[in-house]
């Protein structure tokens, strides 16, 4: 009898309590992940809202050349985006349309629309240090990565590791978010050898309408010495009126700038 009691404790209670314990950790993890997910979504939506219109200046610095371009961009949600280059004159009118996970470039001088093939997704966008994939976001940070959240007194540090089936070149992405302002500070990208390959930092917060957002995005590839791309938001209109769905079609992509 005594024996059977011990046996039943061993057989039943121990695994049960172990189960409960793991479940507790799991619950905590899930809550953590949920929180991280929310934070990332917040950051993602920050510059977009339901519909946005922005004017930006992009400065590309390399050891061989420096270049500056101004452009306007329109977005609806996360899926639709249209960017048109306004200056310099040589590139005026070159446009990029993103629909869901596809992307096209339009070149007015030669009147050609060229789809960006999947193989070119990691290629440079308009000669900058941003890749086409940075614009398309083929991989969703919240769905395709496992998230873990660390908190310090001022900063949330979210570590993203790709899920088993996710196709990506990054082995790890670390996002730092300001706890108080809920604005991003830095995103660091690591390659498969756990080397920090590039860092995007968010700087110079500025009032855009009712919100304060970092107005400068700086992308520094660490494996290319002397390279740097700065994107400055000159104007940003969130929940902009007049940005319609039919703006984001291949036909409107071909609309020429006057």
């Amino acid at each position: 009898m005594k024996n059977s009691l011990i046996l039943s404790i061993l057989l039943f209670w121990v695994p049960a309590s172990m189960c409960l314990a793991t479940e507790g950790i799991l619950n905590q993890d899930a809550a953590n992940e949920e929180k991280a997910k929310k934070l990332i979504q917040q950051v993602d939506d920050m510059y977009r809202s339901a519909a946005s219109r922005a004017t930006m200046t992009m400065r590309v610095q390399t050891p061989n050349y420096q270049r500056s371009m101004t452009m306007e961009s329109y977005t609806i949600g996360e899926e639709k985006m249209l960017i048109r280059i306004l200056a310099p004159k040589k590139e005026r009118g070159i446009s990029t349309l993103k629909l869901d996970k596809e992307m096209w470039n339009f070149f007015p001088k030669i009147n050609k629309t060229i789809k960006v093939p999947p193989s070119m997704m990691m290629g440079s966008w308009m000669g900058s240090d941003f890749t086409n994939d940075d614009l398309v976001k083929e991989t969703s940070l919240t769905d395709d990565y496992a998230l873990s959240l660390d908190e310090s007194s001022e900063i949330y540090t979210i570590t993203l590791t790709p899920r088993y089936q996710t196709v990506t070149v990054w082995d790890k992405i670390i996002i730092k978010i300001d706890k108080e302002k809920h604005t991003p500070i830095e995103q660091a990208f690591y390659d498969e050898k756990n080397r920090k390959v590039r860092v995007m930092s968010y700087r110079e917060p500025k009032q855009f309408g009712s919100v304060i957002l970092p107005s400068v995005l700086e992308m520094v590839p660490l494996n290319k010495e002397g390279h740097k791309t700065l994107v400055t938001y000159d104007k940003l209109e969130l929940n902009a009126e007049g940005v319609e769905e039919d703006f984001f079609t291949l036909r409107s992509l071909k609309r020429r700038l006057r």
Partner: protein
Amino acid sequence: MLLAKLAFRNIFRQRRRSLLTGLSMGGGYILLALTLSLVEGSYNNIINIVTNDHTGHVQIHKEDYLDRAGIFKTLSRDSSVETILNSEPSIRSWAPRIYGAGLGYGGEKSAPLSIVGIDPLMERSTTKIFEKVREGRYFRNRIDADGYYPAMIGYGVADMLKLSIDDEIVLISSGADGSIANDIYIVEALIGSRDSYDKMTVYLPIDAAQDFFSMMGKVHEYAVMTGHPGKAQELTRLLSAAISDPLVTVSPWQVVEETFYKSMEADKQGNKVTMGIVVFLICIGVLNTVLMSVLERTKEFGVMLAVGTNRLLVMAMIVLEITTLGLLSCAVGFVLSLPLVYWFTHVGITMPQPIDMGGVIYDTMVGEMGIGIFTIPVVIIVGSAAAVSLIPAIRAAHITPLDAMSDR
């Protein structure tokens, strides 16, 4: 003196025998001179094809552009390089160039291709590009009424993109400033042939190429022509000394076309064996006739020795006789071969099947005229005749007069 007189008289005493020996030596001379002329001519012809087609005699680049080409390794057009090129008297002409690669579109077709920017006038006076225009007309460095620059394309490009004269070709690439280079050009000429090395090349006027690649006032290469390919190394030294910028590299065609040059040198080595065989055959002929003429006169030498002539003198007389005969035959051979070599050099043999070298047609096999062509055979013929005459001369000098005269 007496010796020379004797030797000379001996030659004319037996006219038929001397004629026969002389004929073999003179014939050998003509054969050697012609072979040398054609061999040298062929090599020079090939070198000219290579240097005239594209390479030039000397090229100037930034740093190691030749080994590791890069869009940023450029030379500035307003640097001292062009001033030096203009002021150096041994330079016949020079041409600036820009190289790049891109994607070409013709209608819906696309193909990767190489893009070369050239100065239409300077390139024309430097290389044979003008002669390579097969269809259409050689382009000019200017925009047409609709604002388009002209382009000349290789046949590979024309075939792949289904383009012909006056069609539009769209080029996309990336500029030196990271911008996306994209523009439309009008096809004005088809260049070369379907086998040309530049069949997948689009030629643009240099201004158009500079604009396309966003590299105003810059070039990747200068091709320089001097009077003769042989002067390339001398000019290279001269230019290297004149250009003070240590980042500028001057290379002769031997370096630019290193593979070609090395295989040509190897081929030349192989050719020396062939030449050796020709010389050997001629030597055998000379030996044969010389030996015959000396053996025929065994009795005569016997008499000479019997009356007390020094053995060494007999030997010297025979060698002198043959050498004189050799020189005389060479003189006759020279007179006969001169018009022949001249004809080969200036007219040449028309080949039944013309050779197309990158669109430049070479249909005649030409020779080369030079001091070496005529003097080298003299040395070979007279030298070998003197050498082979030593054998019968020694034999004649050691003969016993009694044996010689009794004809045993």
